[in-house]
């Protein structure tokens, strides 16, 4: 697309552009290593470079020419065709040694999914989509804090996440009723899986250049290094997000107009899900013990419709369990089962009598609150392990 707005310079020797193969920094192959309790996971301390070929634009740029262009740009504050050329050539500069293999943070268009964002793998072979759904009063960033960094920092999971794109869904958990949030989530998932909608993952660069240089045709960069078709899907929810996910799966299963095979085959990991209702009596206890703001805001917003839904186990939550268990017995779909991690000191959600649906798997963790249970750290990798172990758990 970009080449269309450039003059033909194929005969200009070293200043020309050519489509070809170029070596880029690539990941060091590693084995996925399990950690024992108490182990401190290794953080990547160095990145070795390995040759890998990707079809990319190959630059043969003359630095002097580029500097000359830059000076003209600054002095005149106007862009010529060389301005675009400089940008394109710069685009082809050598890969940075320390972050060429890290996920790229892409903000989804606000008009479609305000405040949702994605971590895009640099791998052409990425075939895994992981959708994170936050809980009551949370958000796409804070709820999952450190996931964004650790997927690229920890040896434990670096290889596993190298072929995965991570999508952090944001919705108005506080004010909307569950059904509305479910509807939003399904739209979000439909826009991503199995093939992401192009307009959500392109960045238009027209406004960077004066209009006379770009014309009216949009010049767009796609964030994916290659066409994506997700074969593996993971849904990860915290608190109310767990309810939203399970209801979305039920809705998808009952929607005969649109088969959502990938969604129904999704593996599900849930952190302290509100599947059995909130526990108002522990409300203030959580507030006083919580180190961050989430609990305080939860407290402030306790009288909202979503909260009422979660208290009303007869109206929403019990049927959700009954239908999910029924479908799980009838149809062998991954999405009817979940792996759940509970905190032993959770004052916000009720674990129910069993802490799980019939076909779920559950585990407990020590020393984590309702809000910190889903936040991995250097010394707390359980949230990451919960996701990476799903395929073994539900083969």
């Amino acid at each position, binding site marked *: 697309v970009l080449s269309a707005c450039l003059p033909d310079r194929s005969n200009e020797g070293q200043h020309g552009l050519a489509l070809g193969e*170029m070596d*880029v920094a690539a990941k060091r192959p590693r084995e996925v290593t399990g950690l024992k309790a108490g182990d401190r996971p290794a953080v990547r301390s*160095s990145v070795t470079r390995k040759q890998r070929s990707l079809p*990319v634009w190959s630059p043969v740029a003359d630095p002097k020419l580029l500097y000359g262009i*830059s*000076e003209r740009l*600054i002095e005149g*504050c106007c862009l010529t065709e060389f*301005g675009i050329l400089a*940008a394109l*050539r*710069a*685009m*082809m*500069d*050598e*890969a*940075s040694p*320390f*972050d*060429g293999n*890290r996920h*790229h*943070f*892409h903000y989804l268009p606000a008009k479609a999914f*305000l*405040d949702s*964002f994605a971590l895009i793998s640099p791998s052409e072979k990425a075939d895994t989509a992981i959708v994170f759904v936050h809980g009551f009063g949370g*958000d796409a*960033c*804070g709820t999952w*804090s*450190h996931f964004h*960094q650790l997927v*690229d*920092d920890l040896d434990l999971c670096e290889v596993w996440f190298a072929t995965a794109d991570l999508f952090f869904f944001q919705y108005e958990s*506080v*004010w909307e009723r569950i059904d509305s949030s479910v509807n939003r989530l399904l739209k979000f998932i439909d826009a991503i899986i199995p093939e992401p909608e192009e307009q959500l993952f392109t960045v238009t660069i027209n*406004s*960077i250049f004066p209009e006379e240089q770009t014309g009216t045709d949009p010049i767009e*960069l796609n964030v994916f*290094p290659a066409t994506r078709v997700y074969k593996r899907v993971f849904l990860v929810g915290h608190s109310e997000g767990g309810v939203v996910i399970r209801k979305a799966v039920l809705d998808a299963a009952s929607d005969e107009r649109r088969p959502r095979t990938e969604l129904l085959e999704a593996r599900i990991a849930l952190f302290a899900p509100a599947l059995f209702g909130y526990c*108002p009596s522990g*409300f*203030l206890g959580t*507030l*006083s*013990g919580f*180190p*961050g*703001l*989430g609990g*305080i*805001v939860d*407290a*402030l*917003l306790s*009288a*909202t419709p979503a909260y009422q839904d979660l208290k009303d186990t007869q109206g929403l939550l019990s049927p959700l369990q009954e239908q999910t268990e029924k479908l799980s017995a009838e149809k062998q779909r991954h999405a009817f089962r979940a792996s759940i991690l509970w905190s032993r000191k959770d004052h916000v959600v009720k674990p129910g009598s069993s802490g799980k649906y019939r076909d779920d798997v559950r585990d407990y963790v020590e020393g984590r609150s309702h809000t910190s249970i889903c936040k991995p*750290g250097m010394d707390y990798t359980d949230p990451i392990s919960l996701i990476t172990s799903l395929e073994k758990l539900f083969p």
Partner: protein
Amino acid sequence: VNRFQSLRLAQFWHTRLNPLRLTQDTDAPVFRARVFEAVGWLIEGVFCGFFDRLQAEVIWARFRPVVAACKDPEGTMVTEFLRSQVAKLMVSNSPFPESAQMTRGPQMMFELPLFSQALLLGDRLAMSRLANECADYLYSASDKGWEQQKASWVSVSAGKVAERLTETFGGTQDTASLLAGYLLLLEHMEASRSFFRYARERSTRQTDFESYCQRIGGLNAWRVPLVDFQRRRRFGQLRELFEFAMRDAISKELPSAKWSDVEGALSQQITSLSDTWEAQHSAAFLVRV
């Protein structure tokens, strides 16, 4: 090729620079602070190799007139270090020379992987309408207007605050929206604290964590007004407004609970957040160039 460098810069342009270019409210102190902060992110992004320096020159050429139109920002909103960096950029023919960028080594290895997350947090704070309105009000309200506003705090409704927090477009500016903005500021402060805690864990003896805090934290330090005495006092007073709303929420939703059960924890939490913000962000104002 690091094609992501191009995408990062294009995204940064759309998220930060272009909206400022289109607004150009150059007389407003808050606008000038936003402009300098955005240029600061550009400078730091190029410095650590997150943005490509040659592409950044193209972007800078397009954005430079906006900076040129801005008067000098307030000393309590833009750090001396950032001001000097922008001044250098303005007069330079080669704004981002290779020789001035961070060399490959432990510091780059420390900073570069963190930049995405730092920018994400900075962007989310910058794009938070309510948090921005709250900060704007703290900076711009007259003493008389502030005192009048305070008189209405007693009757703040927790339900209305919840409404304001979830309005996508909003537009209503009242006591409830002021508190909603304050809560979002606190949320961002918590997110920032968590980020710097993580960064510290990643740092080694070969890296300069203090310098990192001063340069990266200093960029958006002004968004929580703790440097200037008057605005700092106002920011501190918003805790009272929060308490009024909490009392209201508790009396309506949890009548059996006592305010005193949470009062201490709430106060401790907010004080702790403010202290951390000062150490990791506002401390950059103490650095003299």
